[in-house]
């Protein structure tokens, strides 16, 4: 147990992660279409300000600005040759601030999806996915990341490929999926099947969970699903600050700091150990979340009704795992041999 996240998990019964990266960078003037990762080198002060926002708001863990820093995504900006550099610098900037903070902080090297559909449905092979993630992992490791933070994944094979890449890089890792389609990931993964997938991996993550998706309520329903599957592994909850709304030409997430404070405490009651925000979560939200986690007592595991009452309704009637979901009988003809 030599890594910073394991040490922290051993001594604390909850940890706060950070909020949004994209939302906060756009607030600092990133224009859409630009690869945020290029700012690591071109605008390092803004990336420092991004990290500092999370640190000053009381996060124990913050993610590096490297979500789209894999060759597959950077290719769209003709920066596929800069994977190692952009990831290394993303982590270096974080390392610098973490070491100077005067308290324990985990620099988590963010790894987002490749954006490609994997074989046999799409064209990305498993081996190629491992290679893509491995290249990024080495850059993050080189820059001093404590742990790799694989997030917003929807396909089981992509999750496995990232795990293998972490293993090749000799790095501890955590992994979260985005459950945005009626309680499942886009590729049909349920909360229960992610728990099963995680425990079957040869290089198991230190923690696993859900991020992004559709609002705070749905995310907590997924966390309840993890807990119900009986996992002993720490659960991560990183939900969006509500749902995006279009107001006067701008998009803004309707989740207030008060709502996210409620969400944080409920996430802990649902069984999450690592709690943070995702899209729309600003430092202001994080301050409110931290205060709530520190001052409010733990409660019983909330029911779905309580979650809906306090955070708003769910986007779909079920979480995709229930028995009522068995497909209706479709009259089938004989299969060919």
């Amino acid at each position: 147990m030599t890594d910073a996240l394991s040490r922290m998990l051993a001594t604390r019964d909850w940890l706060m992660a950070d909020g949004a990266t994209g939302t906060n960078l756009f607030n600092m003037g990133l224009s859409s279409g630009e690869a945020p990762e290029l700012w690591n080198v071109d605008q390092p002060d803004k990336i420092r300000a991004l990290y500092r926002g999370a640190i000053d708001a009381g996060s124990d863990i913050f993610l590096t600005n490297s979500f789209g820093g894999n060759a597959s995504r950077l290719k769209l900006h003709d920066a596929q040759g800069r994977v190692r550099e952009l990831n290394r610098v993303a982590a270096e900037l974080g390392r610098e601030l973490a070491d100077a903070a005067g308290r324990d902080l985990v620099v988590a090297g963010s790894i987002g999806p490749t954006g490609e559909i994997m074989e046999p449905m799409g064209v990305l092979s498993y081996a190629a996915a491992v290679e893509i993630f491995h290249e990024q992992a080495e850059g993050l490791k080189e820059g001093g990341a404590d742990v790799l933070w694989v997030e917003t994944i929807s396909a089981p094979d992509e999750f496995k490929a990232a795990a293998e890449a972490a293993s090749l890089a000799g790095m501890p890792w955590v992994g979260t999926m985005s459950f945005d389609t009626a309680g499942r990931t886009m590729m049909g993964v349920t909360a229960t099947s992610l728990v099963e997938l995680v425990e079957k991996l040869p290089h198991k993550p230190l923690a696993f969970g859900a991020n992004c998706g559709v609002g705070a309520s749905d995310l907590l329903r997924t966390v309840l699903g993890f807990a119900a599957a009986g996992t002993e592994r720490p659960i991560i909850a990183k939900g969006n600050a509500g749902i995006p709304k279009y107001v006067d030409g701008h998009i803004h997430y309707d989740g207030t700091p008060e709502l996210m404070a409620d969400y944080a405490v409920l996430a802990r009651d649902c069984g999450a150990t690592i709690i943070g925000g995702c899209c729309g979560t600003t430092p202001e939200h994080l301050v409110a979340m931290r205060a709530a986690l520190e001052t409010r007592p733990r409660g019983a595991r909330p029911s779905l009704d309580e979650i809906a009452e306090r955070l708003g309704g769910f986007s779909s009637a079920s979480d995709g795992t229930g028995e009522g979901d068995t497909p209706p009988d479709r009259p089938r003809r004989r299969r060919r041999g």
Partner: protein
Amino acid sequence: MAEEDDDLILSDLPDDELVPQMHDDLYDGLKEEVVEGVEILLSRGWTPYRVLTEALVAGMTVVGNDFRDGILFVPEVLLAANAMKSGMGLLKPLLVETGAPRMGKMVIGTVKGDIHDIGKNLVAMMMEGAGFEVVDLGINTAVEAYLAALETEQPDILGMSALLTTTMPYMKIVIDTLTEKGLRDDYIVLVGGAPLNEEFGRAIGADAYCRDAAVAVETAKDFVARKHNQVAAG
């Protein structure tokens, strides 16, 4: 003997059994079987248009419905769409040759600033699966690129996708530009993407927000039918 019974010979099936079998094979994403089915129906004198609508499109409708209802997920739908595409590959030149009526044409792209494309690709595949002709402009599509494609392709439908809250507003820029140029009413504008909702679609002046690829197909069919009716009435 039982095993032999399971091994269906497609060419032995009469039309009224072959077509449902093709629907099943599409549903199961069996590419070669679907292509074989298309070949058999053509060899029995079916018009390409009839093969398209009754065997392929009807089969994909079942896939689309089960996707909409949460019974199928993206992986299965992609396999079915791939199988459909193989069948379409055979039919496409024949459809043109025979001057078959068109389902409609769509120009689609992820908006400028946004580099997400899985959802958009899925819509494109499902639209093709429903028999639409699709021109995919890819990711990071600027308003000029949309306008150029609308002019050269003359589609019925413009589809825009965004996965970022920061890029969603670009859809309004495209729609406003169309309005300025007096082109807005020439096209059915459909929008989609994870952070969008109906309210947003209305606010920016799109014809409809489509929650997923299956809804996009249904909405597209509906609007194209209405458009044709209007033309007929006008």
